[in-house]
């Protein structure tokens, strides 16, 4: 079957080694000729690219280029009208959000989506829900398996709290936190799900320089410590060029560039569409 052959070809593709010595593995996710339409509007037009194991992959482009739509296709929230999404060598069928989470994909949102009235700790604990197996009665009584699970999961969550240095706000309700910290809490919740693939929708939006530096360090550390593959959308060019291994550039729903940051930076189409023309 052609499917099998393609699968072999994909897994056989060797990875590469980055400048700083990280080993990037084979293809984890492949988007093939994706087209996404909302009524008459074509949001994404015939785009193909792949994401490799252990990679930090950025999607950039001007406003309205279709970046967030692309991320929603990757996360399985949107189903493209045309094209195929291949994940771990299998073609992916349309899925419910919880099935996406079970597949090991977690995300953060452009507009923070946390439970504002709950504490940081409780918010991050919700990220562990997919790992909890005890029944409702046991959880309500906090008995037996439920208690064991809670303790195990709390330990895991505490490690993430330590990792992201948010110990001092552990018991603070999210509504009382400043924006930059809320972003970090969202990242913590996504990490709590132990994702294989982490999707970040504008992780630096609205942050000051110091917060951006902190967030960049956390993204690099997550990738390094947990080996998490990361796909991110970001407007700050400096951040994108520093962080990512490969960059996809979109404009008006089309892909106009794909490659390592330096290559993309010098691509004339990209300069025209985005980097050069936007501000002068």
């Amino acid at each position: 079957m052609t499917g099998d052959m393609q699968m072999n070809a994909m897994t056989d593709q060797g990875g590469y080694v980055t400048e700083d010595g990280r080993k990037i593995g084979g293809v984890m996710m492949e988007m093939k000729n994706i087209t996404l339409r909302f009524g008459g509007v074509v949001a994404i037009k015939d785009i193909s690219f792949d994401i490799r194991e252990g990679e930090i992959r950025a999607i950039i482009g001007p406003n309205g280029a279709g970046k967030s739509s692309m991320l929603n296709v990757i996360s399985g929230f949107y189903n493209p009208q045309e094209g195929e999404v291949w994940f771990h060598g299998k073609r992916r069928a349309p899925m419910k959000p919880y099935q996406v989470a079970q597949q090991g994909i977690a995300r953060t949102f452009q507009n923070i989506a946390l439970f504002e009235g709950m504490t940081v700790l409780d918010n991050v604990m919700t990220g562990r829900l997919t790992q909890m197996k005890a029944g409702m009665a046991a959880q309500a009584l906090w008995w037996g398996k439920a208690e064991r699970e809670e303790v195990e999961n709390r330990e895991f969550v505490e490690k993430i709290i330590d990792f992201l240095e948010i110990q001092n706000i552990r018991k603070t309700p999210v509504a009382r936190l400043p924006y930059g910290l809320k972003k970090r809490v969202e990242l913590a919740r996504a990490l709590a799900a132990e994702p294989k693939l982490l999707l970040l929708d504008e992780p630096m939006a609205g942050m000051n320089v110091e917060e951006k530096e902190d967030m960049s360090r956390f993204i690099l550390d997550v990738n390094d410590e947990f080996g998490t593959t990361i796909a991110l959308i970001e407007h700050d060019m400096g951040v994108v060029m520093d962080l990512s291994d490969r960059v996809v550039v979109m404009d008006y729903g089309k892909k106009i560039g794909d490659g390592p940051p330096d290559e993309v930076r010098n691509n004339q189409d990209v300069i025209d569409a985005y980097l050069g023309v936007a501000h002068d």
Partner: protein
Amino acid sequence: MEPVSKDAGGLTSVPALLDRNAQRFGTKPAYREKEFGIWQSWTWAETREEIRSLALGLLNLGAGPGDFIAIIGSNRPHLYWSMVASQMVGAIPVPVYQDSAAEEMAYVLDHCGARFVIAEDQEQVDKVIDVQEGLTNFEHMIYLDPRGMRKYDHSRLHDFAHIQEQGHAARDELSPELDRRIAGIGYDDTCVMLYTSGTTGKPKGVVLSNRNIIETSKNSSEFDHLGPGEEVLAYLPMAWVGDFIFSIGQAYWSGFCVNCPESAETMMTDLREIGPTYYFAPPRVFEGQLTTVMIRMEDAGKLKRWLFKTFMEHARKVGPMILDGKPVSAGDRLKYKIGDLCIYGPLKNTLGLSRVRVGYTAGEAIGPEIFDFYRSLGINLKQLYGQTEASVFITQQPDGEVRSDTVGVPSPGVEVKIAESGEVFYRGPGVFVEYYKNADSTASTKDAEGWVATGDAGFFEPDTGHLRIIDRAKDVGKMADGRLFAPKYVENKLKFFPNILEAVVFGNGRETCTAFINIDLNAVGNWAERNNIAYSSYQELAGHPQVLDTIQSHVEEVNRSVAEDEMLSGCQIHRFLVLHKELDADDGEMTRTRKVRRKIIEEKYHDLITALYDGSDRIATRTEVTYEDGRKGYISATLDIRDAKVMPAMTARVAAE
């Protein structure tokens, strides 16, 4: 519990005290650290094993007598163990301020010729790697937190846990050598070397012997009846002598437990959870806590505010007297008991000070109102006067003889004398051995008979025998007309206002005094919020006319109080300005312990000082600032200069009469 001093004779090193504690208090906690949201603890027996494993690992790396081992990081059990392990192998631990910039760190590492560095995390490791080229003796670095370190070249870099594992694996071969080295540590061998932050010039390495540390720990533990039941929270910099005495010297001598907070930001929560019985904090921590309480009380309901006000008034009246054991009427006692039940007790609990039996503050003058607030709650807060060169203690206040304007009587075993010039001298068992590789400074500070110059001017109160410190001896000067100029005295009075964070007074050799003022962003920001005053930056708030009015009223109040003191009435402030940036250690304007560096400020802001004296109303200026990552930038501002009302000097009136 009883002090353990009696049977500790003959123990002449910290490792020897560790062995005794592991035997006597084997199952009692020696260290706790909050990690992953839970207090993890180590008993004295476990602590001994941990430290020995590390020491064996250091032997394995080739550490030996005469080596210096720099220790850089925040208060963590592992880093305290590193100090003791260094001593075990015969090396000298040198704790370094963890917030030092790379160049400052390079100076210290180069000056002591550190062969090994034990660093807490990537941040510290990076700083050392940045400067390692220039360090001739540097060989190996050990890090505690492996996060982010995977990709580093590990030929000279080691994981703390691996060093311990290697040490443990080699215990059969190396233990006899380790025991031999521990037995070989003499009473006059170096225990630790601490760098003074230095208000002027480069830091100096103060060499303290085992005798210095152990005698001081013994005397001071007996003075305050410290026993193995004490709990302390270790949160002040490890490179500061006080932390070494409290968290190692006294802790090992008395066998009490050292608790390490989860992170610097969680310190207040951790304080509440631990409830220390023995507590030290510099005045600014007490000030900060009081400000928080007052701000939160203003947000409370009417009834609560009334209760707080009523009972705090009563506490101020009788609280300190009850604490000092003075006679107080039965009615007042009863009212105080009720207050304790409703207000003082819960408040102390919120502050984490419920169990404090002995509390100290030092380093700076503490505002009388702040000091009295804590004492009126029934917290036994006292003052001490000390220096790195004295292994902390020079004078301290005995229970029952506590006042906010003195620093107490000479500590046990310490002699104090006042020289002709007014400078305070001391000698005792805690007096340092020398400044490392700096014989000139040693000779100019310590004379042949062991008397050490403190550099502070002060006098003994004739009726109580308590020492009062006026100012740094070198800062005390004369004004143009010969009157006494004591800037610190006036600055402290200014800083007692919650709105004022820092003040620098000028006037040496001049006709009049003037001042720079830094507002306290917490207090003033809260006031602005309350009064619907919008501001977007520190600079904007600092230049707000209403803020300037408030500061002016504070300055004038200080002038009134200064005028009452005949000797110092010349120090009234005629003109002042509010600075557009906070004075910062990163810019070299303050020391790491937040003491103002006058020389540097005078040079850096000479344009502002000129404007203060030439009568202009405003001045435009541009100032260099250093960001946390070491980059530099500039901020520009136009500052208003205000005139303050000055009281007629008392001397003039006295002369007229």
